[in-house]
Structure formats: C-alpha cells, structure tokens
C-alpha cells in the first residue's frame, strides 16, 4: 500500500526538493503551504506522516501541531517538526507537544528518508 507524507511548508523550493527525495524513495507526497490548509488536508487525506515547518505565515507550526493533536481525526498521525530556524529547547518543546521527532533543514536526503521510514505509519 502506498504511504503518504503530507508536507506543510510555505517555501515552494523546500516542498519541491523534499517531494523529489521522498518520491524517489517510494512515498506519495502531498503538500500545503500554510497551517490552515495543512490541517484541512490532514483531515481529508489522513496521511501516514506529516512534515511540519515552524515559521509560516498565518498560524505557525506550533499552533498547527496543537490543533492536529487536539483533533481526534488527526491526533494519531505522527508529525515531524521540520525547521530551518533554531528554537530554544526545540527538541524538548516538540516532544512535549506530541511531535514524533525534530529535524533540521538543510538535511541529508538519506537521513530524511531514514527518519520518515522510522515514523511513517507509527500511529500513536
């Protein structure tokens, strides 16, 4: 069965490059460029994993994560926080808020695939 990854990220370049890496590894990739749209797609598509950026216009990644975890339909989808900006206690904060992992951009394609493989489908 095809595994779906939803990327919630406002930078088109990141979406395209991440999509290429994951598609080459056999994943189906969907994307949303803001938090609201991302939450809607998570509810309609119920992906196997969400890659979530923090700094986005509108509601930011933390708020998106909170809403995903509050909604019973999306609460069990593993979410990997995916950020280019340093956050104080980023690891700790994301774990406390229910994220499955915390990953920094730029990334090594192989490491990203490894991490996605680790968490994909591991519904909480």
């Amino acid at each position, binding site marked *: 069965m095809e595994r779906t990854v939803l990327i919630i990220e406002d*930078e088109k*370049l*990141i979406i*395209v*490059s*991440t999509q*290429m*890496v994951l598609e*080459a590894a056999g994943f189906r990739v969907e994307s949303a460029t803001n938090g609201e749209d991302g939450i809607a797609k998570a509810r309609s598509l119920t992906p196997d994993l969400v890659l979530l950026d923090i*700094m986005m216009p509108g509601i930011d990644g933390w708020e998106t994560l909170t809403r995903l975890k509050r909604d019973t339909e999306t609460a069990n989808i593993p979410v990997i926080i995916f950020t*280019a*900006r*340093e956050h*104080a*206690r*980023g*690891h*700790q904060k994301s774990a406390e808020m229910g994220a499955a992992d915390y990953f920094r*951009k*730029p*990334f*090594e*394609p192989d490491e990203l695939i490894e991490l996605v493989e680790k968490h994909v489908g591991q519904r909480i």
Partner: protein
Amino acid sequence: MTCTSEATILVVDPDAAHAARRATALAGRGRTEVAGTVARGLQELAAGRPAMCVLADALLPAELSALAASARKHGVYALLGADARAPDALELALRAGCDGVLTPDEPAAGVDDHTRRAAAFAAAHRLDRQDFEALRRRYETLQQRCAQQAESFQESQESYYLDLARVMTIISNIMDGIVFVDRGGNVTLLNPVAEDLLGTKAFVAVGRPLRALQGRADLLGVLVADHDRVGSSREVSQTVEVHHSEQDLLYIRCITSRVADYSGQPAGTLTVLKDVTADYKSDQLKNQYLSIVAHELRTPLTGIKTFSTMMCKGTLGPLTEKQLRVVDSIREQSLRLEHQIDKLINLGHLEADEYGQDREEFSVAEFTAGLVLPFEQPARDRQIALTFACEGADDECLFADRADLRRACQALIENAVKFTNDGGTVDVRVVRARDGGLRFVVKDSGIGIDPRYHRRIFEKFFQVEDPLTRHHGGAGLGLFVAKGIVEAHGSRIEVSSRLGEGAEFSFALPHRTESAAAAPATAGQAQR
C-alpha cells in the same frame, strides 16, 4: 696617694695669705688653684675645669652652701677648712653640703685620707657623669626618633585619609552598585547606586546581616546566594532581571568576589552590580537578527543541497563525469556554507544563554559514533593520521545536550586537523580521569600555540595569524563556541601547548552521576 694629672685642689679663701699657707701645706698632694672669692670659685667650677676637691675657708654659711651645691653638681668633693677647732665645724660643714672638715693642724695622713676620699668621690661621680651622659645621648636620640616617627605617622595618616577620601568619592560616584559584606555576613558598605538597585538605604543596611535586609527581594536573594557560594571559587556572577519600576525592566549583572585581609585570610565579599540592560537588549536584537538571517540562508540552501545530492547519487538520471564533478563541487560548497551558518547560529546561541538546554542521557558509544567521520576525508587528503579511541568507556552514560556537546568536540577536532601540517597526527580519545570521570582529549602534532595566546584563542573571532596573510581559514569562532558549550555543562577546556610542539585540548565530559545531575544547572546559571 697620687693624684691624677688633671686632679686639682681648688682653694677658695678670701684671705690670700691663708690661702697661700694652705697651698703650701697641700703641696705634693695635687695641683693647687686659689680662688680669692666665692664668685670666682663658682666660676671655676661652672667652667668645668677638672677639679677633684674644693677646700673652702672663712666663708659665710650661705656662701659655703652655694659653693658645696655647685661642687656636688659638678661631682667635686667639697671640704671645709676649719681654722678654729670649733665643736660645730663638722656640723656646719655637713649642713652646708660639704663632705668633710680639714683642720689646719691635721697630720699629713689625715690630709691624705681626705685626698683619697676626694679622688674616690671624683672617680665615682665621673662614672655617674659618663653614664648620665650616655643616657642623655640615648634619650636625645630616642626623642629625635620619636619625633621623626610621629612626623612620618602623621604624614601616612594624612595620605591614608586622602586615599580613603579618593576611594570613597569613586565608590559614591561610580555608575555600578557596590556592596561589601564582611565575613560574618553583615553589610559594611553600600553605595548610592546599590541603594537604588536594592531598594534600601545605607544607614539602614550597614551593620545589619545581608540576609535580613528588606528591599528588592529578587536581587537581595541573588546577593545572599552568591555570598554563600563564592567560598569555593574566586568569583561568581549571574545576570538577573530586575523590575526597577513599572515600565523599567533592568538586567543587572552581579559579580561577587572574595576579599582577603592583609594576611590573606577571608575578610568578606564584594559585589559589583552592573546594569547591562543596553548590552542585553542589543544581544537580543542581534540574536533575533542572526536567527532570521540563518533561516533565510538555510531555506535556499536546502534546495541546493538536496538537488545536488540527488544528482550526485544519480536519482535524477545519469551524469557525465564532468557534470558529476561540477555537481559534486556544488554539493561540497553547500555543505561548507551550511557549516558556516551553523557557526553563526552557535554564536547567537551562546549569547542567548541557550547552550546545554536539551539535556538527555546517552551512552558514550552512541555519542562518539561518527564523531570524527566529517574529518576523515580532509585528513586523508593531507596525509594526516586521524585516530579515535574510546578507552573502555563505551557503556558509560553521559548527561548533556547531545547536539551541543557534539559541536564542541567537533570544533576541537576540526581545529586540530586544521592546524596540523600535512603528514602529521591527530589523536582523539575518551579517557578515564584519575577522579573516575571521563575526559575528551584531542592531541595533535600541529604548529602549536604560544602560551601567551592560550587564553585569547577562546575569544570571539580571535586568530593568532594575521587575517589578511594567514594560511588557515575560518572565522575564529570554533573554540569560542566550544568553550561556551563546555562551560554551560559545568566543565572547562584545558590547553597544553607550545609553539611548534603540537597541542592538547581536553575537558571533563558531563558524566552521569548523582552529583553531576545537579551540578551543571548551577554552573550554567553563572553563564550568560
């Protein structure tokens, strides 16, 4: 009986004929001088002429008393020559202060007897006089010295009060708060700035225990804590947020140092309260700016790195050898750029007090896996033998911010590889220290560091070489960042090196023990 050559018998007798007879009678018993009047006789004695004996005759009792007193004062034997054998001659002589009586018909033996007593008297008085002279000289010398000492004491007292006035003027007018607390924990000095910051007054605080002061509780609490913990170290410092007024939030750096008395014994503590609000705010702005810049740089970099990596791996189809070389170079440069951005972020990190925040437990084996990997290729390219050894500590448990600790260790390895000449060696080891803890050690055979730079190499942007002519790249941030991380974990980087003799950097790894679990938090607090 012989007289000393100086010894003289002074005959004081207004009757010249009588005096001449006396002189004749005394011939052979010393040189005889004759004074015709009492005044003359007193003059002779006052002049200090050496006289052994005064023989007075035919004088009034008052004159005789004056002469005898002068004779006694000058240590001369006084003798009354009695013409008549008056029964009261001896009494008169003694009352007037004479030592004896000489009668005209006294046999030679009697004269000799008087002469002997006069000589003994003179000798005894001469000795007394010598002692007296010596004592007088010593007294004068002492008096002189006392006067000198008093003068110099006054001078030093004046200079002391002047110095004290200067110091007090500085303390009163300085822009920093100053608080001095004695060994017993009582406040002994509080300047106006400290009064304002602590919310108390010197006349209330001085003489009272620091911990009993009423005022701005947050800052006073820090002062009490620092006063207690400075005992084990020379100086402790921390930055505290102080709500000075409703709109005014201040950042106060409290630096507490031990003070020793003249014999080196602890005399108390001195706390300097520095308002670092402006620096702190500019740091915050700088860090926000750095964070935004890093984000803006990392986003396009993610694309460049991902695409070039995929092309190198052939995921997007086969490339010619030339294309592969170009794409590989793009990938390598993107990695370098990423590394530089990381360093910039680390710099911001240190100043935002964010090192060592994500602490967790992990094994030494987990930590060291792949630690030297990024440096293997660069080392091979320059024929540097890069070795790694973990001496039986694989299963030990560390408690630290794993990513930060990795950055610190890699900064030391990178530094060692960079400053080692082609064909040299770099040994990375985790060893067991004597105290049972673990140490991370990087030893190289590189160019070494002059001991005078051992402290400065940890300064931000510091490079030993001239930046325009140097052979080794880099921004001068690696060691600065490593130091910040290691200190945030409660340890310190030790350097051992001489110019041309390689270098060894090492620090104690944050080992998981009961005490280690609590200790780093305190050490981290002292950092900002």
